[in-house]
């Protein structure tokens, strides 16, 4: 049977439309970015990416070193080393598989190696569950990885291209993780515009590691033992690199929009009907889908509700988020994750957002919701219920109960 591909839409040299999942979109991005080394180890839902990469390779459409390692730990070690010798790299995992690789994941950032990884978000076992939860990817938030939450299959493809561009920028040289919600992105096919090779070549330069290249012609040692006399300076360097990412991301995103002709106002956040909103809901990933639907419905009823989607979790766009939320009366942060024993027993994103708002002179109320854990569907009526609770806080002038679990059976 012929491969199922949508017909070209008009211009032969233009983007082509495909009906693909977020995982397929990232596999295609790997091919367009001409990634040199890809490592894989199966775990659902990330494994769909390795299936599509293998298919592209088997079809002769993509040439790369594709290494199926014997564990996630080796998988991430291999790309780390490949990145050190100048190879463009890609790998990924999900849930506890991601955690099994953690020794390699932490050193990748410390060594300033621009590995790009996809995290197919999955609940951490036990209990075994394949559905989306954000705690897996979030575990790198303190380690010097850039961390992005994707909202659509199109954004998965676009973000992967952006990730190599930013990570491999010599001002940055930090790894990047692209988080894709399990099932709703990894296993759902949407219509995606696939750019041409010429567009991608124009946007994405070769990876050049320069003086840091591990090569016999450039004798260097990487990662000596340093102890207390060097370590703090090294941490400060990594911090400075992360501080530089914001400008590099902005610059790359502007160029992305020029080359590919699409993109939001900001690379860091998406604002939806926030301009005059009294209540702004905040969330990440495919939560945006039911939330935007709910916002439209509530707007029809005359309620001034908006939505802010956090795209880059690291770097966290403090100023943009302050600016966007300073205009509203109250904020409801919906977390698809949780941090046991955290301040106010809130979600991780909630505490980040609340902390970012602390410096504002006129702070909105901030409320935490935990919803959709383990991939439970977040329904429009759930969003309406959360919005009503935020409205109650506005009416009473204070947040009486900071954190609420939504959709949990008593």
């Amino acid at each position: 049977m012929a491969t199922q591909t949508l017909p070209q839409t008009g211009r032969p040299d233009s983007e082509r439309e495909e009906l693909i999942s977020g995982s397929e979109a990232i596999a295609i991005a790997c091919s367009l970015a001409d990634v040199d080394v890809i490592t894989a180890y199966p775990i659902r839902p990330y494994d769909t990416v390795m299936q599509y990469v293998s298919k592209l390779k088997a079809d002769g459409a993509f040439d790369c070193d594709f290494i199926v390692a014997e564990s996630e730990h080796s998988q991430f070690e291999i790309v780390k080393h490949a990145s050190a010798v100048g190879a463009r790299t890609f790998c990924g995992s999900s849930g506890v598989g991601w955690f099994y690789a953690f020794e390699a994941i932490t050193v990748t950032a410390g060594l300033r190696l621009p590995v790009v990884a996809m995290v197919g978000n999955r609940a951490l076992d036990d209990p075994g569950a394949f559905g989306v939860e954000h705690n897996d990817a979030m575990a790198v938030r303190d380690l010097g990885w850039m961390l992005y939450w994707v909202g659509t299959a199109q954004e998965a493809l676009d973000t992967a291209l952006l990730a190599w561009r930013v990570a491999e920028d010599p001002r940055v040289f930090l790894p990047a993780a692209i988080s894709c919600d399990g099932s709703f992105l990894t296993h759902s096919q949407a219509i995606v515009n696939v750019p041409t090779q010429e567009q991608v070549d124009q946007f994405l330069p070769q990876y050049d590691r320069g003086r840091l290249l591990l090569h016999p012609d450039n004798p260097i040692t990487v990662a000596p033992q340093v102890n207390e006399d060097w370590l703090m300076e090294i941490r400060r360097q990594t911090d400075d690199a992360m501080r530089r990412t914001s400008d590099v991301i902005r610059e790359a995103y502007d160029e992305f929009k020029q080359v590919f002709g699409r993109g939001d106002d900001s690379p860091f956040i998406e604002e939806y009907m926030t301009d005059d909103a009294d209540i702004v809901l905040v969330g990440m990933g495919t939560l945006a889908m039911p939330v935007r639907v709910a916002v439209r419905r509530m707007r029809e009823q005359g309620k001034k509700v908006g939505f802010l989607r956090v795209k880059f979790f690291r770097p966290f766009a403090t100023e943009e988020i302050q600016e966007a939320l300073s205009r509203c009366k109250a904020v409801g942060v919906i977390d698809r994750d949780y941090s046991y024993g955290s301040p106010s027993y809130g979600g991780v994103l909630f505490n980040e957002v609340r902390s970012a708002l602390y410096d504002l002179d006129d702070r909105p109320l901030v409320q935490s919701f935990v919803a959709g854990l383990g991939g439970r569907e977040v329904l429009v009526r759930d969003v309406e219920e959360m919005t009503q609770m935020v409205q109650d806080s506005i009416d009473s002038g204070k947040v009486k109960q900071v954190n609420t679990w939504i959709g949990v059976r008593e």
Partner: protein
Amino acid sequence: MSTVAVEVVYRGIFQKTLARNIVRTIVFAARKEGKIGTAFGRYGDSPERNGIPAKQFAIVSDSPEELEENLAVYEAREVDVTINVDDTMCKGVESWAWYGLQPINALTKPGGTLIVTSRQTADALIEDIHQKDSAYNLAIVPASTSFSGLWVYKDDHTDVRILGALARVCPELVSLDSMLAALEDQGWGGLKLTSARNTHDRLATRPVEPGEGSEDEPFSFDLPGWKSMEEGLVIRGVEGGAGFRGSSLGEGYDPINSNAAGDTSYQPTRSAVFKKFSTRSMRPVINFDTCIKCTLCWLQCPDTCFDVTPDGLYDANMEACCGCAVCEAVCPVPDCITMVNEAEFNDNNSQWEHWTKDKDGYHKWMADLIQVQKEKDATRSHGYHSPGTYEAESEAEVALTGDDD
């Protein structure tokens, strides 16, 4: 302003590619008319198991905003058309995830259509299909069950025939022309286009009235809340089994530790909330008169589906049987166990009880079924083994390993 949703209910793995091709082509065809769509499998079915009922969806809208109302979900809330590509699933479907038993028409909208590939009559199918409160339509695409799965794609035109039928019953989704154009884009020309068009033109649809159909109550269950669950992710084991159908020897009888009155009957306790029998597309029919009580079916059944009767026979419990045909393969007595297409049966009643009460009636019933099955064997496409496979494999193994024993 409209959204149209279609589901394809199929046998996991065996029909996976068929389902995928159908839902994807729906989105392609709708794209021809400027609509936008998504195609996805029910995540709870994944990773798929052989033969277990699974679902894929195509949802098509006029605008991205309308489509968004149907995204980030596992199942469409309701569908305009349900497509069932194996008529034995008309009895209802249970995923291996925790959904209970869903009637095949559970998501079909009032006034929507259920398309089934079948050689049965509409009346015979409706006997199996759970009744609904609202009217809907039943359309039959005359066909044997297609085996177009993950590993092998049997190009028997089921894909294009279904799509032709779909354009007929749901023109608001796409026109036949758009559907044919989408088929052509995929390299499906010539005879396949004719098949699609013929099915479109000849499709017979029958209205199904509210309350028409099987009155069986599909089993369901309540999920526990966080306060009522045991902590530590502990699930209590089910209690041990007891004598046949609750024991002939009354309460307190311990079938494992006692052998009272020589009754060694035994029935394992099975999950009340996860039954799996909708996986079955064939079931064993047992000739209790020729059974030599060798225990092989009871031992080898991967689902522990055989209940030991008080007279030492083995009754395949139809609430537990997945229809794998291992019993038929291992039974050393010719024609003692025969797999028969599930569509021939309308209940899960005990064959042994039937045989005990009315031996002559049972034999006639059994002989008729076996005769029907022999006629169908040419088109048999399911089950791990077809008759003779086990013997052939055994011989090959003996040849490989030697026959010293």
